[in-house]
């Protein structure tokens, strides 16, 4: 028996592809292991094989059934029919599927794919030998879809702290030139509707108008959805938020520069399956303020200031100010973060993952 992984699409700088590559390194310690994907970005071609090249049972020397770990994130009928037809055992790893409602108006095609992703998961329900979720929040979603026995297997991540990537000093200077100086809040993540960057900018407007005029906000991440991005740029312009910036795509060194100047990490996101930047904020000893939505409370636990899940701009702004100014709170959050971040050690996640696989292998 061999253990392989199946993705819908593999691309560079994609969290799911990245975790699949880490899992592959782990699985290759056990035996031969490949990643197969329906769509393979050219940059990933040396690492990831195409789904059509997956060897059917008759071409395998041992002929035994393999174990396929399917990373579920978006709809793709061909991948699902492949999983149904192979005769191999299937373990689904649920990374969460963003609710389609966030995209139904802005990108109907993408919204349809998200919807399809959930329907396909229900369709696969009786086929899978084991259902894994990267958080209890995700496990809850799978259970709501009718999966009988869902286990939690944390994401195998390499949470990088300061020093992992050299800081681009030019970027530090550029941020100061554009935004001036002042206590700095950082958001890291894709600029998409479910991350509620709009609400974040509104909260920053409240913060800089009424509470901390010197504060800076860096929104670091790509905005694939042009209308949303353009509307945010409009908001930035019309509210006169000259101490806030949407960076767009950043190189790792530039992102490291953002972390190096950050005094607080903030997110207004409504939907997260895990939220990796929260773990990175802990590793960088940057205190967190966030809304208590989806998997965020589970990831943060007591190592960050969480305001209500339905908090508006004013309460979030108070939280931002508190995290930047309350020195006792900052020290305590950093202490707790240093403890909490140890839970994300890849060895722990690896052990849990392999133990779950062993139970069905």
């Amino acid at each position, binding site marked *: 028996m061999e253990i392989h992984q199946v993705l819908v699409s593999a691309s560079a700088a994609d969290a799911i592809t990245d975790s699949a590559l880490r899992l592959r390194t782990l699985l290759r310690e056990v035996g*031969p292991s490949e990643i197969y994907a329906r769509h*393979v970005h*050219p940059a990933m*071609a*040396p*690492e990831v*094989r*195409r789904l059509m*090249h997956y*060897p059917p*049972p*008759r*071409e*395998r*020397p*041992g*002929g*035994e059934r393999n174990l396929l770990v399917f990373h579920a994130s978006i709809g793709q009928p061909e991948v699902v029919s492949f999983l149904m037809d192979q*005769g191999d055992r299937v373990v689904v790893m649920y990374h969460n599927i963003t609710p389609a409602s966030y995209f139904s*108006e*802005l990108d109907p095609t993408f919204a349809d794919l998200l919807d399809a992703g959930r329907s396909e998961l229900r369709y696969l329900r009786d086929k899978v030998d084991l259902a894994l979720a990267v958080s209890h929040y995700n496990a809850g979603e799978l259970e709501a879809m009718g999966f009988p026995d869902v286990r939690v297997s944390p994401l195998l991540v390499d949470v990088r702290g300061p020093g992992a990537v050299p800081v681009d000093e030019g970027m530090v200077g550029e941020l100061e030139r554009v935004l001036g100086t002042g206590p700095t809040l950082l958001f890291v993540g894709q600029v998409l509707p479910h991350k509620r960057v*709009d609400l974040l900018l*509104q909260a920053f*407007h*409240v913060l800089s108008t*009424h509470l901390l005029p010197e504060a800076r906000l860096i929104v670091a991440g790509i905005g694939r959805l*042009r*209308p*949303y991005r*353009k*509307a945010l740029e*409009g*908001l930035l312009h*019309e*509210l006169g938020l000259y101490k806030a910036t949407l960076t767009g795509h950043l190189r790792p060194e530039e992102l490291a520069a953002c972390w190096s100047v950050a005094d607080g990490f903030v997110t207004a996101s409504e939907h997260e399956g895990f939220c990796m930047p929260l773990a990175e904020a802990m590793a960088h000893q940057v205190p967190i303020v966030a809304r208590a939505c989806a998997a965020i409370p589970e990831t943060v636990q*007591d190592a960050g*200031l*969480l*305001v*209500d899940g339905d908090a*508006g*701009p*004013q*309460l979030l702004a*108070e*939280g931002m100010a*508190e995290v930047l100014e*309350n020195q*006792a*709170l900052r*020290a*305590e*959050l950093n*202490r707790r973060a240093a403890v909490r971040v140890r839970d994300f050690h890849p060895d722990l996640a690896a052990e849990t993952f392999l133990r779950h696989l062993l139970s069905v292998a």
Partner: protein
Amino acid sequence: MEEQRDAVDLQAILVELKERVAQRRASGEYPEALEAQLGEHFERLMAHRRQDPLPEETYLTELVEQLQARSDFGLHKFSYKSSVPGGDKLHKAVGKVVARQNASVLQQLEHWADAVNRTLKLLAHLAQEPPRHFHDDLWSQLDGLLQRAADAERVEAGGPAALVALADRVAKLEAATGGQSFDPWYSNDAFEAAFRGTREEMLERYADLADRLVGCDPVLDIGCGRGELLELLGQRGVEAWGVETDGELVKAAKADGFDVRHGDGLAALRGADLGSLGGVTLIQVIEHLTSQQSVDLVALCADRVRRGGKVVIETVNPQSLYVYAHSFYLDPTHVRPVHPAWLMFLFKEAGFHEVAIDWRSPAPEADTLQPVGDDAHDANVERLNQLLFAAQDYAVIATR
């Protein structure tokens, strides 16, 4: 230090933050309905974007159209009208003089406007429809190249798929050029009759192997010949069918009422559903296969035979030198003898649970070296007997 930690109570901080918001609202520091206004403001921006997803490009097209409409220069556009009576004629006369003087300037201006128009049209077109096909072509070419490079790397690294493909090609070449293309003028029937023994002898010889397959229905007998093993299996109530490459033997077996199909054994295995067979037998067949066909055979058996099913392969024993002198080279279609240790290894590697070996057809006692009564010599005689006169055949019985 401990006191300071206790002082940090996140819930208490949250309550305090909410109070501060309420106070700021009450004191008028926050304008009334500020949050609602901010939300509506963004909604308006979004509504605008939803309707007009690509404003710059559309605007560019409009500008180009306006320019085109305005760049239709020409003498006919000069107006000679005048409100003064008789002024039209004067204007016309003056206009003609001016027009004559400016005609070439006008012509140059027209040419320039045309060039500007063409450039702007192209720019507008490019802005709206970037030449994606170039990108796509390049991407797909690059994609293909990277895939090939990746495959090449895997071959170097001993990737199983690449090796199987390579071995398949080698086997095909071997099949095309090797002993398999042997095409004698005599009938196989005559050969069998001369060297293979009677049907009764065959039935007696393989009865024990048939016993081992009870409960392993259905059994596929590859290279079933006239159907002796099928007959034995039928007698034991085991459902069985055979494949045979020799058309004459197939006819004979069918005439005797056996379920025999004309064709290649490996192809028959490939055609069977996964786990659909209870048993596969090859009696004196594997020595006719190439090495690649042998490894493929075992892999296919692992795939097609259900758990608990059996594969029985009987063949000549290369550990007996007597075999080479008497039988192996008698059949010109033998490709190579198969070593029992290798065959056992193949089945174990393919994941079979139990692999047993059964030594068969001892060399005739009369042919072996006889002891002479001297212990030292007899020990040597024994060792020589083992080397020269080991069992002529062996059967591997592998349980899936």
